[in-house]
């Protein structure tokens, strides 16, 4: 587990406390009961604060799952080459 994943796991644990470590990997807005619109807002705010980034709230389609968010964060926090 890299640092980005560990930090994202912490965000998910805070917002979805009943989610197990295993279930977290496959969690998305359709299969997680507590994941409603308020949870989305809270999760995005937590991630923005944790990673010091801004999330475009008009383009969250790929961000409503743990895997999608992890990919998004890895892409944004990866060191740039060149």
């Amino acid at each position, binding site marked *: 587990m890299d640092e980005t994943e560990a930090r994202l796991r*912490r965000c998910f644990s*805070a917002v979805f406390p009943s989610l197990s470590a295993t279930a977290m990997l496959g969690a998305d807005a359709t299969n997680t009961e507590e994941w409603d619109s308020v949870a989305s807002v809270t999760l995005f705010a*937590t991630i923005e604060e944790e990673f010091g980034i801004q999330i475009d709230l008009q383009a969250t389609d790929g961000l409503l799952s743990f895997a999608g968010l992890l990919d998004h964060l890895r892409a944004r926090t990866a060191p740039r080459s060149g």
Partner: protein
Amino acid sequence: MKLIEALEILRKEPPEPSDAFRAFLASGFEPLHLQTFLTAQLRLAFPGRKTQILSGVYGDFWGNLDRLSALGADVGILFCEWSDLDPRLSLRSLGSWEPSTFPEVLSNVRARASHLVEVAEKLSRQTTVVISLPTLPLPPVSFTPGWHAGALDLELKAIASSAGAKLALLANVKVLNSERLDRASPPGARLDAKSELAFGFPYQLTHASVLAEMMSHLVSAPTPKKGLITDLDDTLWSGVLGEEGFDGVFWDLEHHSQSHGLYQRLLDALSETGVLLAAASKNDPQLVAKVLDRNDLILSRQAIFPVEAHWRPKSESVSRILKTWNIGADSVVFIDDSPMELAEVKATHPDIECILFPKDDPQALLELLHQLRDLFGKGVLSQEDGIRRESIRRFQENVREFEGRDGKLEDFLAQAKAELTLNFSKEPLDPRALELVNKTNQFNLNGRRYTESAWQSYVKQPDTFLLIAAYKDKYGPLGKIAVLAGQTRAKKILLDVWVMSCRAFSRRIEYQCVAELFKHFQVSHIAFNFQATTKNGPLREFLAQLLGMEPRAGCELSKDEFAAIQEKTFQGVVEVPNG
């Protein structure tokens, strides 16, 4: 506090409580993360209690105040923003910003601010109300450039400020200090326009976090410290007395020692609010007395009692001062310019709060003055605050004088012409009762603290009695020093609350209180709702003496048992119907 930390605090379930703390958050915006921060802060402020924050309907600040009124929460936490005073002052409204509308905006804001004061006054009769007045910057409604203050902006702020002043005068209403908020949350970094437009939540997370923390302080009202022990050389004054002589130490601008003058000025002001002051100094006592008698001393000489000046360790001085004051180390702050002296005192008195005096740093000194206001600050001043210092001094000096003549404490008490005034009235409810209950540690039956609304609810029960005892003797008054509350069941009293000020110790008042309970209610037994705390040793020892055994929850004392062991009491007793 970060949002993730607040969420993690909320994740930890508190132990199942018997009394949940219920707050109602009234705002016109979606409370979202503010509610999360506030719940977390209140969870920290009331450990062991389940904290429940209810909120009202989005966009209906005024309706939410009605909902709060109907609900009866322990506290109402109000966040009033400009948008609640006029929707045109919100980013979510597209109302006119034309200059011709300004008079109407002002009129609207004035009327709503006035209504807020009326509603808060009504709410405060049933619950504690804490209010945050507009914290967000005004949108660019005014036609002036940003650096030019427009009349509209200034008038709007004057209206809010005037409403704040009226609210601050109301009993049971507390207003957030906007100046302190400005220091912790810069005004320019508070509004989150993206969140306001997307979710109706207008605060940046950092602002919401700071606001929640400060409102939580207003709600929980941390118990103020009671006493301050100060060093003298390079602390109360600039210079070392033994080297400079009594006229060679200073505290003014002329001698580049203004910081010490400001420190004295604050101590003097604290003393006027009932804070006990003492000095602990390694010094020649005669030289110290000479400086303290100087006419230019800013701090009143009478304010410092006792003065411990000698060459023994300061921890010994602190021990003697605590004994004289009869208060615990955790209620006291010790200030010295020497880290070594602070460490020596801390090693012996770990509960005392030790603070380094920043003798060469005016900015740090200013921070210290603010810190002391925070540690000793009170919402309101009571009559007892004004007489605390003198009553301790008089009692100690008179006892000492009596003992010097080989007299016994009993003989001293017998000639003191003491009078205990008992007031069993519940209407109007004396605010001193709750103050004493919530700040007394040592002589406290169970250490239970009450919110204003919980206290009102308890006392107003028809079968609850309340006894407030005031004491005076020929040396002067102590004021209201004891509170007892409970219920009568047939021939028994169930005593839930019994606190007594530490200033009233050693006068046998506690025996008199028990005697008066048996007499007034004509009961055969008193059951004590006792709970041991880390600090209520004096009450535990008293009960153990009465019962002949270690007290436990619900322990009982019969009238006959009490009569058999009753110590001689020394007070005449007057019962008043009210006052």
